[in-house]
């Protein structure tokens, strides 16, 4: 019944999906945190930049962003992100696009977490002479992260599925292979089911594990 799978590197394709997800998640966690720090910080210019970034990027379709990284950044401006093979260039461009997009959502999730930290603790931190960066790093962000493990899990699951958009610029992840198999094979429903199952295998454990983590690290008040 599953003869049609023969000759396709299903695991290889999903491995690319996992790599895309991993690097984009890492990148958007870092960039999203910086954006959130800008948005709550005391410098008006940074606050304005953070707000503008989130507002603009959040409202552009991911496909447009991913296609822009290839057509705009690479083919027009010649930015190849230090790679020389096409597959590597496209992979890195996709990570860049996914990071740029996802970090807007990470920033907003984190910002809602920052709002759960009582203002009094920030005042107490100021009163013992901590600077703004210290207060953010030592008092606010650790508590903010703990309270948004749930929302960040949603962002991560969405990111995992969003990696399929990278197929638009030819990254050989799961969705590109699915497209190829749909062209070549007759069992359309089964092909779709196999890929749907593959993604569930990736996202379901993520949700369960992080859900448990969220309960474990929650700050008792």
């Amino acid at each position, binding site marked *: 019944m599953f003869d049609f799978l023969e000759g396709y590197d299903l695991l290889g394709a999903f491995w690319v999906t996992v790599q895309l997800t991993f690097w984009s998640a890492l990148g958007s966690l870092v960039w999203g945190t910086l954006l959130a720090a800008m948005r709550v910080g005391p410098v008006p210019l940074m606050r304005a930049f953070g707000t503008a970034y989130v507002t603009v990027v959040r409202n552009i379709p991911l496909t447009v962003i991913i296609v822009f990284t290839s057509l705009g950044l690479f083919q027009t401006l010649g930015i190849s992100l230090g790679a020389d093979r096409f597959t590597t260039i496209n992979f890195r461009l996709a990570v860049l696009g996914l990071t740029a997009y996802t970090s807007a959502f990470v920033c907003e999730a984190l910002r809602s977490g920052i709002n759960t930290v009582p203002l009094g603790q920030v005042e*107490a931190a100021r009163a*013992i002479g901590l600077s703004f960066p210290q207060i953010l790093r030592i008092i606010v962000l650790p*508590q903010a992260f703990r309270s948004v493990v749930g929302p960040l899990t949603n962002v991560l699951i969405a990111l995992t599925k969003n990696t399929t958009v990278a197929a638009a610029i030819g990254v050989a992840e799961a969705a590109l292979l699915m497209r190829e198999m749909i062209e070549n094979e007759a069992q359309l429903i089964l092909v779709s089911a196999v890929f749907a199952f593959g993604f569930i295998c990736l996202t379901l454990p993520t949700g369960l594990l992080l859900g448990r983590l969220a309960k474990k690290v929650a700050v008792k008040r």
Partner: protein
Amino acid sequence: MPVPEGSVPDDGDALVVLRGVDKHFGTLHVLQSIDLTIRRGEVVVVIGPSGSGKSTLCRAINRLETIDGGEIRIDGRPLPAEGRELARLRADVGMVFQSFNLFAHKTVLDNVTLGQIKVRKKDRRSAEERARSLLDRVGVAAQADKYPAQLSGGQQQRVAIARALAMDPKVMLFDEPTSALDPEMINEVLEVMRQLARDGMTMVVVTHEMGFARSAANRVVFMADGRIVEETTPEEFFGNPRSERAKDFLSKILHH
């Protein structure tokens, strides 16, 4: 050292000096040209009806509230507007809040060592040593490894006092330290504060605890509607208040 009625403390000994301090919240003139001098080792209790501006006054002294006019000097230096300078000054001014405001994700011990390590740049060992002796002094040494949420309100507030003391502040500000406490816990906190006063700490205490004002204060400052209405010894204030406003306030809180 009780201050004779009406005398202006001599400035050589002044630690905190407010001159013509003004503050508005929108249209509300919450501090109206406040003049106040707090001398080294003095315990000043600020009382008054709610909305009189006493908390704002307290918070203005370490610039948790900005002021619109006038000047605040601490130990002879004007209060810096922001940045590193302000952070350094705040480290010298201890503050205890109504709602304790302990860092919820850190243990009691870490709450007390944090400022010593990050601001005073002490090494962890000596910071912990100091923290444990302070926790012992306020009577919560046994709770050092617990988290704030596991402590009673009275215990949390005593930890907050230890956290402020760990910075070796020149002056301690108390912003209604017992108002959020269950009645049976108020005394354990007041006792720590009394001990602190006996040890010669300079203190500004905003409170509704008249017993504390009577027994521990060198001077009582009575505020109403953003002004200092009366400023005198506790004996004088409670025994023979001069202003109608103070008489009215005292009659409402003492005879019920």
